[in-house]
């Protein structure tokens, strides 16, 4: 089976709606099909991978730790739009340091997050075969 490029576009804040959690679950399930998977974090979607999330008081499960498991599922392309961070007063330092382990390089930890400009993001999105928008 030919490999297709799958892109999961995340635009919503992690809590308040179920979009972020649903997206993450679909990504983990789809990982079993060994396709070329990328994730994009745009607009409020950047908050999904923000550091220090605390759901005490809203009665929802804090699933932010699960993004750190993506590397185990060979998902290591997490594109974050620079303008979306800037518009919210955030920088890369406000994001979780999500990494993956390179089996072919003695399990060296390598960063999964790639900050890209809006123009670069447009090109990345245009280059995909399948888009899922959450």
């Amino acid at each position, binding site marked *: 089976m030919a490999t297709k490029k799958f892109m999961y576009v995340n635009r919503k804040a992690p809590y308040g709606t179920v979009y972020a959690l649903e997206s993450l*679950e679909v990504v*983990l399930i789809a*990982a*079993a099909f060994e396709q070329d998977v990328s994730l994009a974090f745009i607009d409020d979607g950047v908050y999904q991978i923000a550091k220090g999330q605390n759901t005490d008081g809203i009665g929802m499960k804090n*699933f932010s730790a*699960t993004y*750190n498991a993506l590397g*185990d599922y060979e998902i290591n392309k997490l594109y974050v739009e620079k303008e979306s961070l800037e518009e919210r007063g955030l920088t890369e330092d406000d994001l979780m340091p999500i990494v993956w382990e390179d089996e072919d390089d003695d399990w060296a930890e390598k960063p999964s997050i790639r900050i890209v400009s809006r123009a670069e993001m447009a090109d990345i999105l245009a280059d995909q075969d399948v888009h899922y928008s959450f």
Partner: protein
Amino acid sequence: MALVVNGVEVATDEEGYLEDLSAWTPEIAEAMAKEEDVELTQEHWDIINFLREYYEEYQIAPAVRVLTKAVGKRLGKDKGNSKYLYSLFPYGPGKQACKYAGLPKPTGCV
């Protein structure tokens, strides 16, 4: 459905998975295994403990593929294969081992 361990009733769902993750004890794992005629050895516990640690860190039960790879890395290449894991957990390492570990059914597990 309920399982009785040391005289205390433990709530499980219709497939036998623990309802409340925090209620887990090693005795519950033993009782679940006994119901399926499995005797838990150190090799079983290595996998169960790994699953519990994985859940603690990432808040998910790993897919079998991920489990297999991680076991190979942690416990040695000879154990990082599905043949070894199925020899311990014949009903499927994901489903059966996660159940004993008190975790939910793995995401994406059919």
